[in-house]
């Protein structure tokens, strides 16, 4: 699905001016960045409730293209700017982690390898 469709189905606010037409097929949900670094292989979307710059750094190391902040977390300007610089889309939704992942799964996103 496209990043803009993720924003639609999660009723999420788009906080970066990045390409929302980009197609993504895989995602992972975690608040533990060490686990993302250890186990993620080719997932394109990071769904997280953790709100700090290391989320963007971690996503960048894993070549992810979109971060969805769940349960009402709003990243500050420095985080948004860093993501913008690294060409990573930032979305923010009030929906909690579990239902957010469920909605994306139902729409066709998978866990990948």
């Amino acid at each position, binding site marked *: 699905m496209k990043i803009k469709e993720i924003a639609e189905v999660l009723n999420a606010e788009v906080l970066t001016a990045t390409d929302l037409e980009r197609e993504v097929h895989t995602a992972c949900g975690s608040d533990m960045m*060490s686990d993302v670094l250890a186990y993620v292989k080719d997932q394109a979307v990071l769904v997280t409730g953790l709100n*700090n*710059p290391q989320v963007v750094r971690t996503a960048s*190391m894993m*070549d992810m293209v979109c971060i969805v902040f769940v349960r009402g977390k709003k990243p500050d300007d420095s985080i948004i700017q860093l993501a913008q610089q690294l060409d990573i889309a930032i979305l923010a939704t009030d929906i909690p982690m579990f239902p957010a992942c469920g909605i994306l799964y139902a729409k066709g996103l998978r866990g990948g390898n």
Partner: protein
Amino acid sequence: MADIHLEYVVPEDDFTRAGEASADLKARLKKLGLSSEAIRKVSISLYEGEINLAIHAKGGRISVDVAPDNVHMCLRDDGPGIPDVALAMREGYSTAPDEVRSLGFGAGMGLPNMKKYADEFEIESTVGVGTTVCMRVFV
């Protein structure tokens, strides 16, 4: 490709800046045209190292040498040192404070991740003196 030598300093007590060195190195390696697999191995192992320097050692120094067939990275600190290196290498073992866990790290995956992603991994640590970790990734 000529050998490239790079030096970075990871500042003390600034967790938000940890990751700048690996981001810079990643961008440079991308420009050099290295494979994405090799770049990822380098970036993750260095990034985990930077986080460790920020969490445990109040910062440190990183040197990187990029040669035609490998990237060699050394991280040095004057931190407290590791009393039991074998234990620290065990997945899930962590001495990180709760504050670090709330930042998404400190799950005892740092050193194991570095070893996992690097092709060669060496660690030397002396309590009260500091720790040196050197890693090589073949490209």
